[in-house]
């Protein structure tokens, strides 16, 4: 599995004027890789991720999955949204089963069994029959992740999945995600604007510039060193990226203040 972003540009019209959001952006995601996209608000992270997932189309350039141009959502891909995008009229279990149903995976009974497995993995076995509104934010996002995993994807796209959660829940879910990632054969493309989250999760951290969105720098993380958030090395990576960001922010100041 190899996902390649080649010379992707994209603009949106704003107040009638076209505004370049992504400009000639290049990126590669290999098999079983965990890539974090990090950047300030509005730099085009979501736009890039959507194009990678086939939900949007690049204006020029393109995204290639195993050398095939991506024009629409591909099989074996799943997407986790910041606001969960669960189906609130379905119970937790039904939410997980539904995706498998649409994709014609297994028979009905097996689907339910598999779904229950994934819910157990996310510590949700007690909430199978709850409706979404009865869950806390963290539980919702865990449901959304279970739903995506149930599709047995090769690539999991995640757009600030923990952005709306409080810090404690967030840390828990990061742990859980790493655990699953290590146990399943999949690649993850993970958008965030939390530096420590990016370091804690990613094999590689892609720092993005804004206006227009481009890749500023790519940082490889030695996973052996950052297992403890309170470790020296962790703080070292943090400070490094913070500095990279200070540069990015300098350029941006005029847009934001």
């Amino acid at each position, binding site marked *: 599995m190899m996902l390649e972003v080649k010379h992707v540009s994209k603009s949106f019209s704003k107040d009638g004027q076209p505004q370049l959001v992504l400009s000639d952006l290049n990126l590669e995601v290999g098999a079983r890789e965990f890539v974090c996209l990090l950047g300030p608000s509005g730099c085009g992270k979501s736009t890039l991720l*959507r194009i990678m*997932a086939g*939900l949007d189309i690049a204006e020029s350039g393109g995204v290639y999955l195993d050398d095939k141009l991506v024009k*629409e*959502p591909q*099989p074996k*891909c*799943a*997407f986790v*949204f910041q*606001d969960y*995008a*669960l*189906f*609130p*009229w*379905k119970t937790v279990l039904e939410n997980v089963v*539904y*995706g498998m149903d*649409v*994709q014609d995976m297994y028979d009905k009974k097996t689907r339910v069994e598999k779904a229950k497995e994934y819910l157990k993995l996310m510590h949700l076995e007690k909430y199978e029959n709850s*409706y*979404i*509104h*009865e869950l806390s934010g963290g539980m919702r996002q865990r449901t959304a992740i279970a739903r995506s995993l149930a*599709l047995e994807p090769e690539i999991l796209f995640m757009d600030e999945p923990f952005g709306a959660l409080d810090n404690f829940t967030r840390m828990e879910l990061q742990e859980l995600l790493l655990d699953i990632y290590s146990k399943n054969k999949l690649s993850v493309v993970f958008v965030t604007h939390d530096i420590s989250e990016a370091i804690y999760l990613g094999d590689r951290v892609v720092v993005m510039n804004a206006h227009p969105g481009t890749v500023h720098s790519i940082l490889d993380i030695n996973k052996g060193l950052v297992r403890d958030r309170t470790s020296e090395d962790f703080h070292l990576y943090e400070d490094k990226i913070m500095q990279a960001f200070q540069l990015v922010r300098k350029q941006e100041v005029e847009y934001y203040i």
Partner: protein
Amino acid sequence: MVDVTAIFLGILVVWEVLTVQLEVLDAFLFPSPQQVLELFIGDLPTIFRGLGSSLVLLSAAYALALATAIPLGLFVGWRRRLFNAVHPISKIMSAVPPIVYIPYAIAILPTFQLASVLVIFVGAFWPIFVSTLNATVQIDKTLIDSARMLRIKERRLLFEIILPAIMPQVLTGCSVGLIFSFILLASAEMIGATSGIGWYVKYYSDFGDYGKVIVGILFIGLVVTAVMAVFDRIQRHLLRWQAKYSAD
């Protein structure tokens, strides 16, 4: 409930005082509560027969409206271009009083009952259609994206994702449509009917028998209350996944 009852009793007392005690109101237009009650009891068989035929009419028309307005609304709302074309037209059409269709309905449809059904149908159709249409256009795009990632077929997208997602707004439209149906009942039952609760009101109001008119209106009120209670139950069931309905 206590308050509602209190208000009803209050109205009753004021009515009694104005008609019987003070006699400030024209006795012909405003019969006393007691007279109305007597008329009501005396006419119970007629009224209940009327209720039967009205409900047949209403449910046929309303079911037809549901069965056409919702799928059409989904379909048109989902196609932006079609929506842009249909939306202004539906605005105009919805302001045409359905009673003007009566002669056409009589001329074209084989039976008078079908003509009555058509009049009620038209009244119920527009609010349901327009609310489905607007809700579909304004649907949360992430939900759609989430379904698109599953490579879902359009049919399933419309009926398994969009329809349940917009169900709250659709139900609001449905309840307006239901109210419309009741308002149009009297007009619809002017076509070749000899019973019906709308007919009852219209018939006696033509004869200036305002006691019976009030009986009819109160009875329609009761029926609306009952139908709305059923509607609420259905709504509660369909929206049991919403926080505000989850208590039951």
